[in-house]
């Protein structure tokens, strides 16, 4: 909400320069820029320039969904507090400290210093909530030792409706997590062509997530703890010469979970002796180290070769929990005390690209690229047999771990030719024809098929027949063929032999995209787009058999005057699919057809610098989702529609009372309602065998009103705030 648009020590000025350079006449005519003046980004030139904005927001009728990512999820007041201070010198040196949304859960602080083109160092902090539900309830009581117990007086029963103490034991909680990320980074550009970047981040994520807790025939939706810490290091160095670059990089990720397990009391009457509590393993610690090499070299004036190679290793060796916490079940010794998990990632990408016309005169204008990619997940985790216990209730059987691995290779050839050279030379209106073919091959371990090969081809036309009109159209098709479908690895639960998992199945795919751009008189620009992707799983009788995704968008922007602009956007998308199943474990005897339709629309008006005092932003949005699922098993039966509708206006008015002082008023209304048959009417005791969280689909009418004051001091305090390039 700050008026200064400097980010990370750099402003959007480079983008402005690019636009200016791109607009220069192609024939090299000299443009007299001596009289040009940038009205959007006054240069501070060594003066301390600061800005602070303070005020308050008041929210009414909000919910977790409204404040999903900013934390405005409770009715009441919120502080508006933003600010920035810094200076920039003529020699390119700068420093800046920025603060954004300090009064909200979604807040950030940053400091950056450096010298343009030479070096930069930055320090940052950002917090971000993810509010999922605020209507969840539970009878469980969280302990400090990763345990969930039941309150005193709890009455166990065989089903939820007989839990007589349930209603009185329920307490509300918010299902949410919050990330807090600290970062430290820097980059340095050496005088001799060296450039290096380093970034370290430390992130914590705390909160709760839903976790199922099965005892074979019964289960509960628990508020499982989230207590993650992730440290990451990204370093890269690059050396550039006149004809090429060479670069090295390292990426390290170190994840740790402060909660290794969750133990919970069984709220149901145990169906076997001792099954009064259960235990789940939570996400284990892991780490990943990766080295990469990047080479790029110009083979001549028209050819370039690029090579990227990556070697990474993921390790996980968390100590195993016991087979069960049921003291009445005798178990064998674990085959290992920890996993010793070890996955190697190998990746190579080799590209040769160039201008064929530079070598062969009659191919002038033809460009091409040949590329090969190799990616392997080599899973070296040791296999073992585990005498598992079924849901802390009964001895199970023997299960063999399956360390999945795969290798993926892709060969691609693409080319592009400007047909305008043949059809209307010298017109200045490009007519580019491009096309490509690629073959992708997968080899897998421990799955129903080992090998699949997909060939894909496409052709694209980009045409600018008139200076104000541009077309872009693409059509393509792909065909995937697989090995004969097997029964899966030994020991896995037998699937219906007619099942074809969609990612392992033969598939024919068609796709097209279409785009039209018009620059109309009166400073109106229109952009229209459409697309379709259709997949047919031609040899699948069980599983996903067909899917289709089709949609279109329309975007209009109108610069009414130098100070007034407007835009409108509309998008429509339909995703449909068909899948089959077999209740008799034989031929297909049911089919599900789904159709997910989604419409979104928005309009907006911007008034900038009216009377040199007023900035006004007005937006209105509407989104409408509609999901239909029809089950056909004998007769047809339709689920109630899955609906999500939201709409509302927002208004921001900024008044410059003095050259250094702004008053900002904001107003926002949002209506949201959803109908979700998975949640509607599902109370904690609705399902006899599942003690659910009772979460409700969202339905709210939220109002948000805000008033804040912005004061600029130092620098050119009276200058107009830097324009926001997004507008």
């Amino acid at each position, binding site marked *: 909400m700050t008026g200064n648009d400097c980010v990370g020590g750099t402003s959007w000025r480079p983008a402005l320069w690019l636009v200016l350079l791109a607009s220069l006449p192609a024939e090299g005519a000299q443009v007299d820029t001596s009289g040009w003046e940038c009205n959007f980004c006054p240069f501070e030139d060594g003066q301390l320039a600061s800005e602070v904005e303070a005020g308050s927001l008041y929210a009414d009728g909000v919910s977790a969904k409204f404040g999903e990512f900013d934390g405005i999820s409770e009715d009441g007041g919120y502080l508006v507090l933003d600010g920035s201070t810094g200076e920039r010198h003529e020699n390119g040196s700068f420093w800046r400290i920025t603060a954004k949304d300090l009064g909200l859960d979604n807040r950030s602080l940053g400091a950056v210093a450096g010298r343009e083109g030479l070096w930069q160092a930055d320090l940052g902090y950002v917090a971000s909530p993810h509010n999922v539900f605020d209507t969840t309830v539970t009878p469980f009581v969280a302990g400090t030792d990763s345990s969930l117990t039941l309150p005193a007086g709890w009455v166990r029963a065989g089903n939820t409706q007989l839990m007589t103490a349930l209603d009185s034991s329920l307490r509300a909680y918010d299902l949410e997590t919050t990330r807090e990320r600290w970062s430290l980074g820097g980059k340095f550009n050496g005088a001799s062509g060296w450039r290096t970047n380093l970034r370290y981040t430390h992130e914590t994520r705390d909160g709760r997530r839903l976790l199922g807790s099965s005892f074979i025939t019964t289960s509960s939706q628990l508020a499982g703890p989230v207590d993650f810490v992730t440290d990451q290091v990204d370093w890269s160095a690059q050396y550039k010469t006149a004809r090429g670059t060479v670069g090295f990089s390292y990426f390290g990720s170190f994840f740790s979970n402060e909660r290794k397990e969750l133990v919970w009391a069984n709220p149901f009457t145990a169906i076997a002796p001792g099954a009064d509590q259960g235990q789940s393993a939570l996400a284990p610690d892991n780490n990943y180290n990766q080295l990469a090499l990047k080479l790029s070299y110009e083979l001549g004036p028209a050819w370039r070769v690029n090579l990227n190679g990556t070697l990474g290793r993921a390790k996980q060796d968390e100590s195993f929990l016991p087979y069960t916490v049921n003291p009445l079940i005798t178990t064998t010794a674990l085959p290992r005390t920890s996993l010793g998990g070890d996955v190697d990632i190998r990746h190579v990408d080799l590209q040769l690209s160039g201008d064929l016309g530079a070598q062969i005169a009659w191919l002038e204008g033809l460009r091409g690229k040949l590329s090969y990619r190799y990616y392997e997940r080599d899973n070296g985790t040791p296999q073992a047999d585990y005498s598992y216990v079924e849901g802390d209730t009964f001895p199970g059987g023997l299960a063999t771990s399956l360390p999945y691995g795969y290798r993926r290779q892709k060969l691609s050839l693409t080319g592009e030719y400007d047909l305008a050279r043949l059809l209307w030379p010298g017109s200045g209106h490009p007519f580019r024809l491009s096309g490509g073919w690629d073959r992708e091959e997968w080899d897998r371990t421990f799955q129903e098929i080992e090998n699949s090969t997909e060939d894909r081809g496409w052709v694209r036309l980009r045409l600018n027949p008139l200076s104000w009109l541009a077309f872009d159209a693409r059509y393509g098709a792909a065909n995937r063929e697989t090995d004969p479908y097997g029964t899966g690895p030994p020991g896995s639960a037998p699937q219906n032999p007619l099942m074809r998992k969609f990612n392992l199945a033969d598939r024919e795919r068609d796709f097209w995209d279409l785009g039209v751009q018009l620059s109309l008189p009166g400073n109106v620009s229109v952009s229209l787009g459409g697309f379709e992707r259709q997949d047919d799983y031609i040899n699948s009788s069980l599983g996903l058999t067909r899917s289709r995704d089709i949609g279109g968008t329309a975007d209009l922007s109108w610069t009414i005057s130098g100070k007034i602009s407007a835009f409108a956007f509309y998008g429509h998308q339909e995703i449909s699919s068909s899948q089959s199943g077999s209740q008799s474990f034989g031929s297909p005897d049911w089919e599900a057809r789904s159709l997910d339709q989604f419409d979104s629309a928005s309009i907006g008006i911007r008034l900038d610098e009216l009377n040199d005092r007023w900035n006004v932003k007005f937006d209105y949005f509407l989104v409408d989702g509609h999901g239909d*699922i029809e089950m056909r098993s004998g007769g047809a039966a339709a689920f109630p529609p899955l609906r999500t509708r939201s709409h509302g206006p927002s208004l921001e008015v900024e008044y410059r009372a003095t050259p250094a002082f702004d008053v900002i008023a904001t107003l926002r209304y949002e209506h949201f309602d959803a109908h979700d048959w998975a949640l509607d009417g599902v109370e904690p005791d609705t399902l006899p065998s599942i003690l659910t969280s009772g979460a409700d689909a969202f339905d709210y009418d939220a109002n948000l009103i805000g008033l804040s004051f912005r004061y600029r001091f130092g620098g050119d305090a009276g200058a107009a705030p830097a324009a926001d390039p997004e507008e």
Partner: protein
Amino acid sequence: MDRQAAVCFGCHQEQRAENSRPFHHPVEGNLMNCASCHSPHGSANDFELRRVSLNDTCYTCHAEKRGPYLWEHAPVTEDCSNCHVPHGSSQPALLAMRAPLLCQQCHSQAGHPSLAYGPGSLPGAGQPSAYLVAGSCLNCHSQVHGSNHPSGSKLTR
């Protein structure tokens, strides 16, 4: 809308429409933007991703799912987009389809994975089914991204 997302959505309108769905990544907040996953100035990877694969990109923020796990879920290790739609979905958790139908696109074992759960299994229409509502399959099989429990081969622990 985040300034960077506004620039990207100027051309990538399909993604703009998807981002307006009820479930999407927080590109409008302070934590992430389009460049958190994509390299706008070029990348050797599919979709100009910052990391060498889609999964490696997702693990940057979802490191707890990297594993490796004792009991892995095969499609998870290959491609997160087998089940999730990264730019926005009408289904919770950015899922491509509602459970149990999403799970039944791959699981056909005899018994409850193969049964047809229709609207007659909803509350108010008869006996509500634990396989259909609330968390559906995840009511029990909640460790769909992998389990490290010795008794977790069915992803319930």
